């Protein structure tokens, strides 16, 4: 007798994505979709797509979604949640979106303690625009705009946004995870689920899950090597674990 051991979760649409081979967005999307289905909140969830590789996230999530200006998802989420306290609002943002151009918006949404959930995908590079330096780019990392590698004196150190946000009284839960193997993917899902559950319970404050995610294309390495690179490089600057809550 045949037994189904793995299937598409309903909130994820039945279509191929535009993401590069080995990209972490597909995994992160699936984890969020599974959480939405397990919590049975598909019909009350509104998602916010960023500017970046995940700009077309609404093509993959079968929920109400909006695409907004670069870096502004936490402000848009504030407008949504304040006027719709019964809805579950989440933003999905990359490192350029959240840590660079949208630094003010995430800081102040956290500062105000907005009851929203933020999924922060950190892949240490700008993907959609062609592999430029991000605030989270590693020291020495070669990108389209750091041909000699990022230098601390020229471009500053990688920005640890989650640590920064964890200092704010308005944030209630911050955890950093990585999509490097099955065990860590499961941990990531658990964290995402917890972040959504807090909002469902009406917990007073912002919850954020930072996900270290591979970008083999602009790291210029194989998908397998990219997973290793997260562990050997990124996790040293961005240590995993619960930073708050």
């Amino acid at each position: 007798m045949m037994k189904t051991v793995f299937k598409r979760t309903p909130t994820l649409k039945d279509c191929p994505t535009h993401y590069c081979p080995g990209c972490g967005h597909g995994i992160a999307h699936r984890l969020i979709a599974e959480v939405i289905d397990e919590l049975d909140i598909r019909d009350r969830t509104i998602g916010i797509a960023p500017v970046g590789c995940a700009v077309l996230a609404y093509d993959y999530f079968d929920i109400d979604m909006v695409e907004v200006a670069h870096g502004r998802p936490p402000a848009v989420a504030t407008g949504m949640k304040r006027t719709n306290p019964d809805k579950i609002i989440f933003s999905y943002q990359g490192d350029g979106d959240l840590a660079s151009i949208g630094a003010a918006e995430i800081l102040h949404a956290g500062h105000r303690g907005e009851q929203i959930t933020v999924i922060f995908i950190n892949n240490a590079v700008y993907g959609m625009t062609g592999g430029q330096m991000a605030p989270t780019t590693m020291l020495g990392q070669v990108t389209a705009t750091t041909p000699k590698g990022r230098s601390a004196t020229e471009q500053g150190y990688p920005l640890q946004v989650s640590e920064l946000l964890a200092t704010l009284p308005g944030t209630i839960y911050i955890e950093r995870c990585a999509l490097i193997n099955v065990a860590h993917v499961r941990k990531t899902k658990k964290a995402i689920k917890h972040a959504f559950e807090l909002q469902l319970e009406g917990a007073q404050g912002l919850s954020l899950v930072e996900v270290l995610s591979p970008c083999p294309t602009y790291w210029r390495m194989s998908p397998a090597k990219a997973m290793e690179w997260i562990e050997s490089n990124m996790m040293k600057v961005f240590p995993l674990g619960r930073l708050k809550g």
Partner: protein
Amino acid sequence: MNPVADRTRNRNMTEEWQTSKGAGKRILMCGNEALAESAIIAGCDAYFGYPITPQNEIPAYMSRRMPEEGRVFVQTESELAAINMVFGASATGKRAMTSSSSPGISLMQEGISYLAGAELPAVVVNIMRGGPGLGNIAPSQADYFQATRGGGHGDYRTVVLGPSGVQEMVDCMPLAFDLADQYRMPVMVLADGILGQMMEPIVLEKKQGRELPAKDWALTGAKRRKQNIVRSLWLPEGVLEKLNYKLRDKYKQIEQNEVLCEQYEIDGAEIVVVAYGVAARIVRSAVSRAREEGIKAGWIRPITLWPFPTEQVSKAADEFRIFLVVEMSNGQMVEDVRLAVNGKSPVLFYGRPGGGVPNVDEILDKIKQLTLKPKAQ
């Protein structure tokens, strides 16, 4: 404004929206607070704003009144955040607004462009001050170009209402929300520091609004329906072009149906003074004085700055007469008057930029100077 027996008018917002004229109680309020209360009466669900002079009475008033009504008030970290919170609330189908003054409105242009692209309704109030740069906090009309040309990037328009008194500040709010909802676009109320600060007796009443289409596009959670998506990115070839044609058609419809303008003594006038907002009030006095001195003068006051009353101005220019445009700027609306007149009559300009406010004598002198000259064809 004194009713004049032979005044011809197209449509007047005050009368149009005051269905039961005189029924409400007359109260004294400053423009900023009156506008804020009117927004509440018009069903504004959420206000988001950042402090800037000379509009601070609006957020201060909203911070008290919105919670009283069980509605949303947020003082934002920036104007960027304010307009994006408006974007978020509006995307869920709520009536949302923000207010600011010139430098803050510049920061909001990104969001206004996204609102236009995503076809979301929103009301943005600009209580103009002097510029460029930080400028000053004196009243000004220097943001006419920015307001009427779209302001942000891309091929779009916003409806722009230019009230000229505190009662009109009140009356334009329900209209702004209705227009925004009807056409799914940002609507701007363009006033200035004088209108925001000065107190006048007004009547606040709940009026019957327009019949509006259901917001079936709103993000409310995909319950027993397909997902709704609010977006402004259209990558496949030709799709964005199609959206832009759709916007063009919408704007054409607005140009045909939503022009508001007031005019006085155009027939037989040798000079027509065109002004909007608070400048139009000064012009009215100057024209009355000119008429007392035997000069055949009239005036046109655009109430909608976009759509501009091109037809009304053009019609007035069918007979040769001098057009004098008076603005608190170095000349911005004068370009729209020139386009409308299209060479049929001379168009001259008198302006006071950088927070300067013309007085009645200055304008009267200009009228005299222009009408005493022999007319050269």
